[in-house]
């Protein structure tokens, strides 16, 4: 991993006091509690937390799929405005996502061509000639080592989990967003395919110079891929820093516990501390 000097680059996505409250009255639950963040351009950022820590909620707020109760999100230095559908469409040209479960991400009634064509249309390629569209789709598929000719007229559920997730990356390749939010992209697929997916994501980042935000519960994976790590507990960031600092020299007790509870290979796994 290459860690470049991040201080020089300006943040492309930041949040100030971002809060999400679900329900009201007695059933009020604060899922995300006044968090601040600055994601710098070209970085790979990981948000690590256990189930129920609010990491999925924050990812949906960043994507604009759910509203923000309080606080503000800044996109490329400007306060984000997604009040109308048109503005949302514009925003989503700059930020895209890969979801956890490849089997649930695709509409099973739509063919693969339609999925990819949607992306071309979104990038303003609606009026391109058919050959040009096909060329773009073939290029995207070959980027993720899939053969476009074999995919036409197929439905996504005819592919394996790893292939579906690769198709998702092909989609991102066509959309070329500024920021990619990857919500546990490898947790549902086999360890052997995981490396392929990660390699492709990193290759894609270099290709189109985007920022990747990883949402994961796997602290080892976060350490392996990211430049900056945000550790999240109960809706708050308890530790933020460069990957090496956070993992090798954790300060927050929660981070320490999290790291010590994961089985390791070279170090002794101390079972007496539970």
């Amino acid at each position: 991993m290459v860690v470049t000097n991040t201080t020089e680059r300006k943040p492309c996505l930041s949040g100030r006091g971002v809060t999400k409250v679900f329900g009201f009255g007695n059933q009020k639950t604060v899922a995300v509690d006044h968090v601040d963040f600055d994601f710098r351009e070209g970085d790979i950022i990981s948000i690590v937390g256990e189930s129920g820590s609010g990491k999925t909620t924050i990812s949906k707020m960043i994507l604009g799929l759910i509203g923000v109760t309080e606080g503000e999100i800044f996109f490329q230095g400007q306060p984000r405005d997604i009040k109308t559908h048109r503005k949302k469409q514009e925003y989503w040209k700059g930020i895209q996502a890969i979801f956890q479960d490849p089997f649930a991400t695709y509409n099973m009634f739509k063919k693969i061509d339609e999925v990819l064509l949607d992306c071309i249309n979104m990038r303003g390629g609606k009026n391109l000639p058919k050959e040009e569209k096909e060329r773009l789709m073939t290029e995207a598929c070959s980027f993720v080592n899939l053969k476009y000719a074999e995919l036409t007229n197929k439905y996504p559920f005819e592919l394996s989990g790893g292939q579906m997730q690769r198709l998702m990356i092909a989609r991102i390749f066509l959309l070329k967003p500024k920021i990619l939010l990857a919500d546990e992209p490898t947790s549902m697929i086999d360890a052997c395919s995981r490396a392929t997916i990660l390699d492709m994501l990193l290759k894609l980042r270099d290709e189109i110079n985007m920022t990747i935000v990883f949402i994961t519960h796997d602290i080892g994976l976060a350490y392996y891929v990211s430049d900056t790590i945000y550790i999240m507990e109960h809706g708050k960031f308890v530790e933020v820093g460069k990957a090496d600092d956070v993992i090798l020299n954790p300060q927050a007790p929660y981070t320490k516990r999290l790291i010590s509870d994961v089985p390791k290979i070279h170090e002794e796994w101390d079972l007496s501390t539970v």
Partner: protein
Amino acid sequence: MGKIMLDVKDLKTKYVTRFKEDVYAVDGVSLQIEEGKSLGIAGESGCGKSTLALSLMGYYFAPLHYMSGSIEVDGRNISNMTPDQVRKSILGTEIAYIPQAAMNALNPTQKIIRFLEDVIHAHDPKVSKKDIYDMAKERFEILGLPESVLQKHAVELSGGMKQRTVIAISTILSPKVLIADEPSSALDVTSQKMVIKMMRDLMEKGFIKSMIFITHELPLLYNVTDDIMVMYAGQIVEKGTAKEMVFDSLHPYTYGLMGSIIVPEAGTRDVKLTAIPGTPPNLKRPPAGCRFADRCKYATPECKAFAPAMKDIGGGRAYRCSMSLEQLKEVYGRD
């Protein structure tokens, strides 16, 4: 060498799908576990490891079918027993099984102590409730579970606590073999660690004589079990001690699998992850040659034609590859 608790020879079982197709999910598996030892089984999803767990119990019901091979628990052959016999005389006392979603199997309307009563009464109806309570209390204390759990309903317990309770219930009769199929995969890391600690306690205190631990998480397996077997497409491709398997793997598949381990410790970022391209073969029609040949970097045309046999190289180590030890060392660049 200790007493052999579980001895499986050339076990073959199959699934029959809805469309009446046979899936040969366990295709000639042999394994042995000595008293006081634990064995880990690793592999990708769909390699047959969960089917193997079910098959080892000798408890066959549709769509799982027994084909051939023998299973001996502490010298007793159980492979030719009827499901009813197996349920009455094997499950609980000889073999205990914990599936991945075990914690969701608890009936929410009953107290935990009722499950224990059920388990014990199924094997000895004469035991009084008082005796069961005392016995359960003692066992729970040793395993670090509070006594109050006994009087609670399943819904009042957290996920990790539920899973530990289920393990305590299923091992209350001190079985000779415990088969755990992904017992901690659905839990967060802290609960996972508690479950693992409890399983280790069970072994150390002698409540279970041996254990089979099935998971796809290799770092976990490395820390929990003495030996590891790697399964691929219904067959064992390599076996050895945990340390040998992780640091000195022989089979190309194991080598790739071990190369995909990521743990949060120094040096992780310097290693390049290895990826294995392709997908496992369809078990409805297993290939004639080596099952890994299609995905193997080092495969020769001969690999695709002839299925290699398990090569025993002593010390409990064996692998299923046509290459010799020297050739393997050469291709991996090891000394």
